């Protein structure tokens, strides 16, 4: 795992002091709220419905136990004893006081963490495959490239006032576990026929009110030109991205309006120019970073388990993922207990998880974009002990990728942009499916809920998506089907008129009825939908 050196530490320390000074000038009145707002946002501080929210960056979703314990301490010291893990692999606290913010940033800096650029119209936290370094199918660990991009994008002098926010994602396998093509820039690290490493660039994806799947604009950027290419792609966007309309300011609109070919031409021209200028870090830097991500010393061990406890066996089947070493697995810690708030963890739970990481997973943890946590490298032989500890802490829900594993935005319970509540809906749906035992029968089904058109709950990419809207002053929910954030990426289509809260829950059940009646052997919900199309579902919902 990456460790700060004196320089990285100096940067976050300088940032804390800068923010302290900005907060002072705001309180003294020499900074207006309009002037302060972009600055606090670039330090992760939002004003929500009831209080300030602080979003802390978890670069490429990787944490160690000491960091998770610090996050638990912050939850207790400055918040209400819990935190909320997000689809950007970050954590946010919902009940923060402005006057505490600089102290929290200082606490974070002590454990090599920060809230830099977790909001604002700048390059945001870089996300990555949560199974990085563990997945059996990766070409290489994508995180060194994400870290190189993190450093390049931190306090970038040219790209701090972009037209709109900007999200990178880095993966290194054919399978896409990070919604890569739904990012402003999605990068897949690949190897060419000559065995050289390079980067595929997908540019102009995103969700929000105009969802788009990013087109491939460059099949192979030599890896020692990665930063230069990213700089070229950003410069074209900074110069020509729309600034007249906030809702058309994301790079996806620029790429769409210019056309991928013309955008690519402009990037290539800028790229050729920047190669001559020389903005790439020295190539030794990537090697230095990569040395931090060398695989731990895996040892051989048992590959089978005593499965006599059916609850344990179910958890193993559902929540563990194949590892590159066959005596290990990656174990998903579900933050989706039936009836719970997706992504929430208490300080106590965080400490339990931190201890498990220290004892059983080479001191490493991941935040998944699905709002769960992950122990990336655990010995199969240790699974019973891990499961027992998780179960005792209410963290052993066996529901990864099932209909209970719901992604939901904070919605109208917290967010000032929301039109409808997301959390209570997620709670009721997961509770209902858990109680009826239908979760297991249905199998893989990704349900995603957003409380407004901004789509923070990724509803466009849900096998089933739910979008909360305001309809003449009451909450109304639109249902959509057929989205996917994976390598078979697609955007969900709306079924028809919306429903009230009870109605949309019933509609979700009806949709699963149609699936169960129609599914062929081995088909997931998404496969069946793609085979039989929208009509049978529409018929059941509105016929």
């Amino acid at each position, binding site marked *: 795992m990456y460790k700060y050196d004196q320089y990285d530490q100096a940067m976050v320390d300088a940032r804390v002091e800068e923010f302290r000074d900005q907060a002072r000038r705001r309180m003294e009145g020499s900074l207006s709220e309009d002037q302060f707002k972009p600055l606090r946002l670039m330090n992760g501080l939002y004003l929500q419905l009831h209080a300030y929210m602080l979003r802390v960056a978890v670069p490429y979703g990787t944490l160690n136990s000491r960091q998770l314990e610090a996050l638990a301490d912050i939850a207790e010291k400055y918040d209400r004893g819990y935190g909320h893990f997000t689809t950007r692999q970050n954590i946010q606290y919902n009940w923060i006081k402005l006057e505490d913010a600089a102290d929290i940033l200082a606490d974070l800096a002590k454990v090599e963490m920060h809230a830099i650029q977790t909001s604002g119209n700048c390059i945001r936290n870089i996300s990555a495959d949560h199974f990085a370094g563990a997945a059996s199918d990766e070409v290489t660990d994508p995180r060194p490239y994400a870290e190189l991009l993190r450093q390049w994008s931190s306090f970038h002098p040219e790209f701090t*006032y972009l037209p709109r926010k900007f999200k990178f994602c880095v993966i290194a396998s054919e399978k896409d576990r990070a919604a890569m093509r739904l990012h402003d820039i999605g990068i897949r690290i690949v190897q060419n026929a000559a065995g050289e490493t390079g980067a595929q660039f997908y540019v102009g994806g995103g969700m929000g009110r105009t969802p788009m799947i990013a087109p491939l604009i460059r099949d192979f950027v030599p890896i020692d030109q990665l930063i230069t290419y990213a700089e070229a792609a950003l410069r074209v966007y900074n110069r020509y991205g729309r600034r007249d309309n906030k809702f058309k300011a994301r790079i996806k609109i620029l790429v769409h309006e210019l056309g991928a070919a013309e955008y690519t031409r402009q990037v290539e021209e800028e790229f050729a120019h920047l190669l001559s200028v020389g903005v790439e870090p020295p190539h030794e830097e990537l090697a230095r970073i990569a040395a931090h991500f060398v695989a731990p010393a895996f040892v051989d061990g048992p590959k089978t388990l005593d499965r006599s406890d059916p609850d344990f066996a179910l958890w193993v089947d559902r929540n563990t993922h194949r590892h590159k070493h066959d005596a290990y697995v990656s174990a998903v810690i579900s933050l989706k207990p039936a009836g719970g708030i997706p992504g929430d963890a208490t300080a106590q739970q965080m400490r339990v998880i931190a201890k498990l990481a220290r004892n059983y997973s080479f001191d490493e943890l991941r935040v998944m974009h699905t709002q769960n946590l992950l122990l990336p490298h655990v010995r199969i032989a240790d699974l019973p002990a891990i499961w027992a500890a998780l179960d005792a802490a209410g963290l052993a829900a066996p529901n990864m990728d099932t209909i209970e594993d719901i992604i939901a935005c904070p919605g109208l319970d917290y967010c000032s942009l929301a039109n409808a509540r997301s959390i209570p809906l997620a709670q009721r749906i997961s509770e209902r499916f858990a109680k009826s035992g239908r979760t297991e029968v249905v199998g893989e089904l990704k349900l995603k809920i957003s409380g407004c058109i901004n789509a923070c709950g990724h509803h466009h990419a849900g096998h089933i998506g739910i979008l909360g809207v305001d309809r003449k002053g009451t909450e109304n929910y639109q249902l959509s089907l057929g989205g996917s954030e994976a390598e078979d990426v697609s955007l969900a289509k709306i079924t028809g008129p919306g429903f009230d809260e009870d109605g949309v829950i019933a509609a979700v059940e009806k949709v699963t009825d149609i699936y169960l009646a129609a599914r062929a052997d081995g088909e997931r919900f998404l496969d069946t939908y793609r085979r039989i199309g929208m009509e049978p579902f529409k018929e059941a919902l509105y016929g």
Partner: protein
Amino acid sequence: MVEFRDLGTSPDEVQFRFRDDEPVDHGTVTVDSCCDQTNATAVRIEPGDDARLLLPFLDRLALVEVNFPSFTDGRGYSAARILREAGYTGELRAVGDVLIDQLSHMRRCGFDSFAPDRRLDEDDAARAFATWEQVYQRAADTRRTIADKRHEA
């Protein structure tokens, strides 16, 4: 846009200047006018202007003003770097809604003079220029980056 004869800032409106030469003491022209008239030595770039149109004329320009009508519009940072990358060595002046917290980034993008609409507190500004003792990226200044320092022989 209406073009005023005295478009641009005068030397006494410049609050911070990191150059030793004499400042240009006449007004600037628009990018369009600069491309049309062969004797202009001072030009003003608006956010929507393409800085690259100026590249054929760099050797006769002594002052380029880059206007920031709003500090949240970051196009001027790219304009500044493009000019410096093309070898422009004259004065590069940030004008308009130039505030404390943008000074250090502007400096890195190649601005060497600053004429804010409203004068800035001198102490706050001095602190802001010195915010980043270290830098991660190569930019239009000559500062050695963190990565350069990590790997110097």
